[in-house]
């Protein structure tokens, strides 16, 4: 297939007429269209998608509504008609494919896609084709199911990274698309068709056996298993429909939740901020209560220095009086002892009789002490008062926690600042979520989680049903085998058909695994060849494929390289696409939108050098950041057929201009 021209009227940002010519010289088969972001590069890719398949794809592989394909400035002028025409050649025939959308009769101002009527037409060698033949023609050279491998954008390259994540939804979709390219569905359909024929033939066989007589028990058993199988298949159909519905609902919720994720996060932050604010306020209240208790005793701290001085003074007086009391006690004791000795003329210490001389000395001493005692007068009330005062002051001077007040004041102050900050945050978040139904978001999240569980449960049921189905099918096969051994039964046409359909079914069933194994090996080899051309790392020896057609880089020792950059991911993805292109179909045009986003100059140079050799036409929609016109194109100059540039006329109006001849 060789693309010739693409022209449009009022399609997306291209107000009025737009037309580009593709390079048709096989030696100069590269076309470059430069355009800044938001100017309409992807719209050109979508023009091709729409004219062939009636669909335009937006972000996250979502279909863009027909209503949104009409140029807005044109609609403001009352013009609601769009048209895209592509001309091309294939297998020696010239084709023109045209798709239009126009305002339906009786609609004054369209407000939804249903208000527009989409029509298409195809001419082959200038002869109009009937509507019923158009799909067959498109499927011959560019089936929609495989279009993602020749009409793709940078986002698709990112999707391939998902292939390494076994079991992801995206992984399953890409695996299906890859197998579609490589012909696996033909074998799956062949197996399914053979199974259906086999089922009908077995029923007919049962009816025939009953008519023959002598095979009633086999017929009855066959009927039993056929009924079981029918019932299980009915269950399976329902389970699969339910699973699809649940998954569709979940995907829809995921999309809806993705859009309001920022809002949900804001609500979460709002709730957290409100909770933290309450905690801070409660803590502040607690601290204030503690502070009040501490303040009650705080006056003591003010008087502490004076009271300490006073207490020390009184205590010193008290100690002095105490020592005086002890001294008086000693004197009184001595007086008492001397008085006894003088009167009894006996020593109080040894009990021996005192001589006259000693008795006189004792009496003299007694008299001196009695005189001394008269000078040792003590005020016991005063002594008692001093003791009491010391005790009271000691009580007052007991240590308190008043010093905690400073810490509490500091903490309360810090909490006040925190609460002010939180108040501001809460106000800002409240403003953000005001008017938004955050409860609805929470409901959707809970429902999405519930659907995930439901999906897993149904998947389990499906597995169980399939196991039971296989068991019943085996039983039925055993009966068929037994009947094959009986000449009369074997002679029936229905029995022959059962045998043939069963053989065909077995061959197709086995061939699916066979093809998958063959494909993996072939795609791995082809992708590795492309990878070695595209990669700038000479140490990389190739790629290894997994069950989902995901590829891992191998180093020079054949060991897997566990970590790779985003740029390397794109090189691997391009290698896989190139491998698939060569494994599954003959070389055709490849249209790439913004494919070099993550790649360095050397990789871009490798791609620009390699891909033109493996495609009939290579069309690249790029921005200046991806391809430098001054430097990157020099080595490719001999292969470039034409270069266009998208120019912005206004926000809703872009124009494509050719900038080389």
């Amino acid at each position: 297939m060789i693309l010739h021209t693409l022209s449009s009227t009022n399609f997306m940002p291209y107000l009025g007429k737009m037309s580009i010519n593709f390079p048709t010289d096989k030696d100069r088969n590269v076309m470059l269209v430069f355009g800044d972001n938001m100017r309409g590069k992807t719209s050109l890719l979508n023009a091709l998608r729409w004219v062939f398949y009636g669909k335009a794809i937006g972000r996250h592989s979502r279909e863009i509504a027909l209503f949104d394909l009409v140029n807005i400035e044109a609609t403001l002028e009352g013009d609601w008609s769009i048209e895209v025409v592509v001309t091309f050649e294939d297998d020696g025939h010239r084709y023109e494919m045209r798709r239009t959308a126009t305002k339906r009769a009786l609609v004054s101002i369209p407000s939804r896609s249903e208000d527009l009527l989409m029509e298409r037409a195809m001419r082959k060698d200038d002869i109009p084709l009937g509507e019923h033949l158009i799909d067959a023609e498109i499927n011959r050279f560019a089936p929609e199911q495989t279009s993602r491998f020749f009409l793709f954008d940078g986002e698709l390259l990112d999707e391939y990274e998902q292939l390494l994540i076994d079991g992801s939804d995206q992984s399953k979709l890409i695996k299906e698309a890859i197998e579609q390219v490589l012909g696996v569905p033909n074998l799956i359909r062949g197996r399914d068709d053979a199974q259906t024929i086999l089922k009908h033939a077995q029923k007919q066989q049962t009816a025939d056996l009953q008519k023959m007589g002598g095979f009633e028990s086999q017929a009855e058993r066959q009927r039993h298993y056929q009924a079981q199988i029918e019932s299980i298949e009915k269950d399976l159909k329902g389970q699969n429909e339910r699973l699809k519905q649940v998954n569709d609902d979940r995907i829809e919720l995921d999309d809806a939740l993705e859009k309001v994720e920022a809002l949900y996060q804001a609500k979460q932050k709002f709730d957290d901020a409100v909770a933290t604010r309450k905690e801070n306020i409660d803590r502040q209240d607690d601290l204030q209560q503690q502070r009040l208790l501490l303040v009650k005793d705080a006056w003591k701290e003010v008087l502490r220095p004076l009271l300490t001085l006073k207490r020390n003074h009184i205590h010193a007086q008290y100690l002095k009086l105490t020592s005086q009391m002890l001294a008086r006690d000693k004197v009184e004791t001595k007086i008492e002892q001397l008085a006894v000795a003088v009167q009894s003329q006996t020593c109080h210490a040894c009990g021996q009789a005192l001589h006259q001389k000693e008795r006189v000395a004792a009496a003299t001493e007694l008299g001196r002490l009695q005189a001394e005692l008269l000078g040792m007068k003590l005020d016991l009330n005063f002594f008692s008062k001093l003791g009491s005062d010391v005790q009271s002051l000691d009580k007052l001077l007991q240590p308190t926690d008043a010093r905690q007040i400073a810490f509490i004041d500091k903490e309360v102050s810090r909490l006040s600042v925190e609460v002010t900050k939180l108040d501001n945050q809460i106000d800002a978040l409240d403003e953000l979520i005001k008017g938004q139904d955050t409860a609805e978001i929470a409901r959707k999240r809970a429902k999405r989680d519930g659907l995930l569980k439901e999906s897993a449960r149904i998947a389990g049921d499906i597995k169980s049903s399939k196991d039971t189905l296989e068991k019943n099918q085996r039983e039925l096969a055993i009966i068929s085998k037994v009947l094959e051994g009986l000449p009369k039964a074997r002679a029936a046409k229905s029995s022959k058909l059962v045998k043939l359909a069963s053989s065909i079914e077995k061959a197709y069933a086995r061939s699916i695994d066979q093809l998958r194994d063959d494909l993996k090996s072939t795609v791995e080899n082809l992708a590795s060849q492309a990878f070695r051309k595209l990669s700038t790392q000479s140490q990389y020896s190739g790629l290894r494929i997994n069950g989902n057609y995901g590829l891992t880089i191998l180093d020079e020792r054949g060991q897997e390289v566990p970590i790779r950059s985003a740029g390397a991911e794109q090189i691997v993805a391009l290698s896989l696409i190139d491998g698939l292109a060569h494994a599954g179909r003959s070389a055709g045009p490849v249209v790439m939108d913004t494919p070099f986003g993550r790649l360095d100059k050397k990789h871009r140079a490798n791609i620009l050098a390699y891909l033109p050799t493996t495609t009939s036409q290579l069309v690249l929609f790029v921005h200046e950041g991806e391809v430098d016109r001054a430097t990157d194109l020099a080595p490719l100059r001999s292969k470039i057929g034409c270069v266009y540039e998208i120019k912005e006329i206004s926000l809703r109006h872009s124009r494509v201009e050719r900038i080389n001849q």
Partner: protein
Amino acid sequence: MTDDNDMALAALLKAAADVEPALSAELLRKSFAIQRRHQFDHDDIREASMQDLKMLLDATVDVEDSK
């Protein structure tokens, strides 16, 4: 951009040789041609390939009966 499916047919013939060697390669090629012809059918005409295959198998049985 035509998908020639040679690998798919080769896989079918190889698988049949392993599990059902008595099946004729011609019958398998014809049955595979039916699937290729109908590979992009819409769901509303999904049964068309099955009907064609049924006719092929009926015809094969009839031919064997007539021998």
